[in-house]
């Protein structure tokens, strides 16, 4: 199964590297936020005293979380294309492990998300004087990896369940927008700033805790309090997502 996973992983990486421009196009959205929205947000945060650290430390980790959230959620499209062209069927007739078919793809997606995140962090460092500790950045990248694994697995499972190029993006947008807004990616949803009901709802959103742990690790806060909830949440989500994805891949007719 490891060998199969590696073969599938390599296939997808070779495909991605054949057109590396797409990796850059994939980070256009967070880059636009970084350059055209970042300066405004950071000035506001700093001026209003809404954050105890520099605004870039608030925005950059949120942008890489957003990248993992959105970028990895749409990978199911490639599976739909493989499904239409008969590739899925062709692979299913081979003795390849069903779990490897999923894991190879998911790992390739997660690695791409990490590389894209590194690009964003480097740009923020060079252009905007982001000043985050290396250890914190590495931890945040690990969390991005897990987040991408989670969303890519779910995306493949969902695509294979729906098998429709129409309903797949519609459903994704319907789910992702509230998740995004309620995770406080642009402006942190704090007890002090948000009305109580909004704060309560955001606490139910698992991705909020992931964004929190990204921010905490960026500022180098490695205390149990700062990391525990978000790390557990992202780990549990990743495990559940892989379980769902594998099950869907193994299920007959999928």
């Amino acid at each position: 199964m490891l060998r199969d996973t590696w073969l599938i992983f390599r296939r997808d990486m070779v495909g991605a590297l054949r057109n590396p421009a797409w990796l850059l196009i994939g980070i256009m959205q967070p880059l636009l936020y970084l350059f055209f929205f970042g300066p405004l947000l950071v000035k506001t945060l700093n001026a209003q005293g809404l954050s105890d650290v520099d605004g870039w430390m608030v925005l950059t980790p949120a942008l890489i979380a957003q990248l993992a959230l959105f970028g990895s959620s749409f990978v199911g499209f490639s599976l739909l294309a493989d499904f239409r062209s008969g590739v899925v069927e062709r692979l299913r007739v081979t003795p390849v492990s069903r779990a490897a078919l999923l894991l190879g793809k998911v790992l390739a997606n997660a690695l791409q998300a990490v590389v894209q995140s590194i690009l964003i962090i480097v740009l923020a460092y060079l252009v905007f004087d982001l000043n985050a500790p290396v250890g914190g950045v590495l931890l945040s990248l690990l969390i991005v990896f897990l987040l991408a694994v989670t969303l890519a697995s779910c995306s493949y499972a969902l695509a294979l369940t729906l098998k429709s190029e129409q309903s797949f993006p519609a459903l994704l947008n319907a789910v992702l927008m509230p998740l995004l807004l309620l995770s406080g990616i642009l402006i942190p949803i704090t007890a002090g700033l948000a009305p109580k009901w909004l704060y309560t709802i955001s606490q139910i959103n698992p991705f909020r805790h992931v964004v929190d742990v990204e921010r905490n690790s960026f500022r180098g806060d490695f205390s149990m309090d700062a990391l525990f909830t978000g790390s557990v949440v992202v780990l549990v989500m990743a495990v559940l997502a892989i379980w769902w994805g594998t099950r869907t891949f193994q299920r007959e007719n999928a």
Partner: protein
Amino acid sequence: MITARGLERRFRRKGRSGGEVHAVKGVDLDVEAGELVGFLGPNGAGKTTTLRMLTTLLKPSAGTATVGGHDLLADPLGVRRNIGYVAQGGGSAPESRVDEEIELQGRLYGMSKAAVQARGALLAGQLDLTGLGGRLTKTLSGGQRRRLDIALGLVHSPGLVFLDEPSTGLDPQSRANLWDHIRRLRAEHGVTIFLTTHYLDEADALADRLIVIDDGRIVAEGTPDSLKARVSGDGVVVGVEPEVTTAAADTARQLTGAHDFDVEDGLIRFRVPRGDTAMPELLRALDAKGIVMSSIQVTRPTLDDVFLTLTGRSLRDAEQGAPQPEVPHVA
């Protein structure tokens, strides 16, 4: 190579109305090693569903089968290792290179890189794919892509290959070329081939033996010739002026053994045991009555006639009238 008993498959219809589609209603099959068997039937007859069951893609609702020496239900992995499958719509990824696809396929069957490359080169030579390794599969012509699909199905040297509608969508020249390749592969590799088709000429041209399926059941099997022998006589179509149709038909009915008349304005169809000897007789008889023929056609029985005899419908009618089950897959 294949033994199937009582294979059945039901699909649940989607939506609230519910209900079931009984796509395959109990199929028994026997295919010997080295045979080239054609599985013939109209669209919607259950060909692809049967094929998908035999290739482990779909679990039978009932029945048992041994494919390539392994039990379909107990050891699907063993079946997968020993068969090749070329799906109706192909299976190459448009954005992948030809050599990458072949290598991945072989390695997923556990072959070493060197073994895949050697085998790939051999197959490329036999299937006219040499020199295309660096091309993206989306840039191949339809015929080339079809041959690549076949190469992918053969890369691990399976003893049994399933070809689902191999020539669908190809132009006549590519079809004839593909048929040559299929015959040659079989001769050179001794591989058992099970192919589905709804083209009668394809079944006629390629298969040693035919199994005819209609409405989820096997309705006949035998060599193309033995099946054709079941149809009594040659087909004759005579064209005359519309106003003399009835008179001409009455004359034709005098021919010894003429039967199965189908008369419409200006066109008379019937069957007669020996078309070649009956024609001069008919010509003379019509001439004596002063009836002029505008056209005449005599055809040897075709598999379409076989289908008509077996099911009471022509293959074309069957396709139009067939209830389309919820297709559980694309391609």
